[in-house]
């Protein structure tokens, strides 16, 4: 097998070299790809965790701290309503964070892998 490859290399180097190069980059690709995949997973899990903490923090306050949420900040605005609006704004902020990371870091890295 090895000799045959060497033979063909001598006979027709342009044919085997691209094949050999494809092979090695394929291996490097897989390691890089897995690294990028686990990087995306880490970012996704961190942001998911942040969303869980914010939302279930809010739910736990509703369940256990009703009096705190009923406090008036100013006329017409309670802590509960203010925090409710904040949860919605946080949802947007986390979404924006992920999309920005994906566009600035993830997509360029993917583009390098694709090449």
């Amino acid at each position, binding site marked *: 097998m090895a000799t045959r490859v060497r033979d063909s290399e001598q006979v027709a180097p342009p044919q085997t070299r691209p094949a050999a190069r494809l092979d090695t980059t394929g291996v490097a690709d*897989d390691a890089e*790809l*897995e690294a*990028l*995949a686990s990087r*995306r*997973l880490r*970012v*996704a*899990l961190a*942001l*998911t965790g942040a*969303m*869980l903490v914010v*939302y*279930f923090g*809010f*739910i*736990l306050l*509703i*369940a*256990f701290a*009703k009096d705190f*949420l*009923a406090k*008036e900040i*100013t*006329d*017409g*605005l*309670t802590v*509960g*309503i203010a925090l*409710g*609006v904040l*949860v*919605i704004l946080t*949802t*947007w902020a*986390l*979404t*924006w964070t*992920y*999309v920005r990371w*994906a566009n600035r870091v993830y*997509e360029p890295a*993917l583009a390098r*892998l*694709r090449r």
Partner: protein
Amino acid sequence: MLLAKFVPGEANSVAIVFFLVFVGIALGISWWASRRTRTTEQFYAAGHSVTGFQNGLALAGDYMSAASFLGIAGLVALTGFDGLIYSIGFLVGWPIVLFLIAEPLRNLGRYTFADAVAYRLKQTPVRLAAAVGTLSVATFYLIAQMVGAGTLINLIFGLPYSASVVIVGAVMLTLLLLGGMIATTWVQIVKAVLLIGGATVMAFLVLGEFGMNPLDLFGTAADENGDKVLAPGSLISGHWDALSLGLALMFGTAGLPHILMRFYTVPDAKAARTSVSWATLFIGFFYLLTFILGFGAMALVGQGPIKGIDEGGNAAALLLAENVAGTPFFGFIAAVAFATILAVVAGLTLSGAAALSHDVWVNVVRHGDAPEQEQLRVARIATFLMGGFAIVLGIVLQGQNIAFMVGLAFAIAASANFPALLMAIFWRGFTTAGAVSSILVGAISALVLIYVSPTIQVDVLGHEDALFPLKNPALISMPLAFGVGILVSLLRPEPSARARFVEAERRIMLGETAGPAPARSAVAPSRAR
């Protein structure tokens, strides 16, 4: 006011004109889309040609049901802060869809979420189990929408309940059979624009009465109805109930088959990402508006008149529209509510039909090897069956509690569909037996726990007590589905599934061209592209 006032149960000419205009638009879209629906690729996935922004609007149109528009506005009008808990809960699932589900799903599958779960597992058992998960979620959600449609159209247009359900069903079936996903997408886009536009105008008009200051609005509502409306009250009583409902709302979104199916309409994972971020923006904005609309109805219309028409408060948004801008605006909002129902039932019916035709018929019965023309024919037959089923259920189950049906659909989605999908995407050691047991245990435990919960035992059957204390089962059924899936996978490893994980990961990141097609490729190559 020059035009006839809104009288519930009596035909209102303005509302009927707007309604007919919208039906005309929907039929026009169907006719236009029918000329572009020649392959299964187009029927199920709009030819993967929808842009990220368009799909963001369509997702919003698919998701914001009449329950969330009329229901939440009514809930806020009657309970204040407690209603907002739903507004927020229906939004927070979207980032989870974005971070964990949308991109992998887009690249692993073709038409249904079962494509992604079954990617490196054994096709037949996984697809059958996933069809059970999809059909149970779609059925309960459809019941809620059809019952809501019948009640609403009866209220607005004065048609008998059954006739209302049949009309919604007939328009939906025309739309789906002619134009499939392309027509559904555009009806959802039109509906989202009308709904968000209409709600924005209404919110401005409401705020106009309070010097554009929302705090004045909240303050007035509290002066009239007591400070309690600005604070958590009795709607969510138990601590564990609050947690369980929160879990179902958050993770249910990521397991709704009609929402997951929309990600196949875009060309690639990047567009899937873009579409969720637009959807999150639109849906979040809409739910912020429900703060204004709900308290606006409370302050301007008053709780008495709202309850006078419908105990559940479903008429709040309609009465508010008439209050702030007269009968023409009321007619417009009524037609928007109809558009809302139509867009959601179309998406749901299509997802149920895809489970029957693509998962069960093509991939299980025909082992993934059916000619294109047969696939398209079976898809249309399944759509017809699913639509007919929805109409029958809507008529038979008149008077069912809508909120309960929606809660149940979310609980099953969070327990049956979401855990299996998540583990299939991210866990190397996940197996066929793990997926099947997780889906079935999730679906069955959610159903059984709902049956023994106070929602059925006390509220529906009128018993004193219930075996299971929680109103929503997700707190138990979702961890159970995860636990069973993990345990079964660990006890009986599946080397072939493990071996294909890297390939699946490659495909998740690089898309369809990256690796060899799945063992039993879902679909024959489409002809016209």
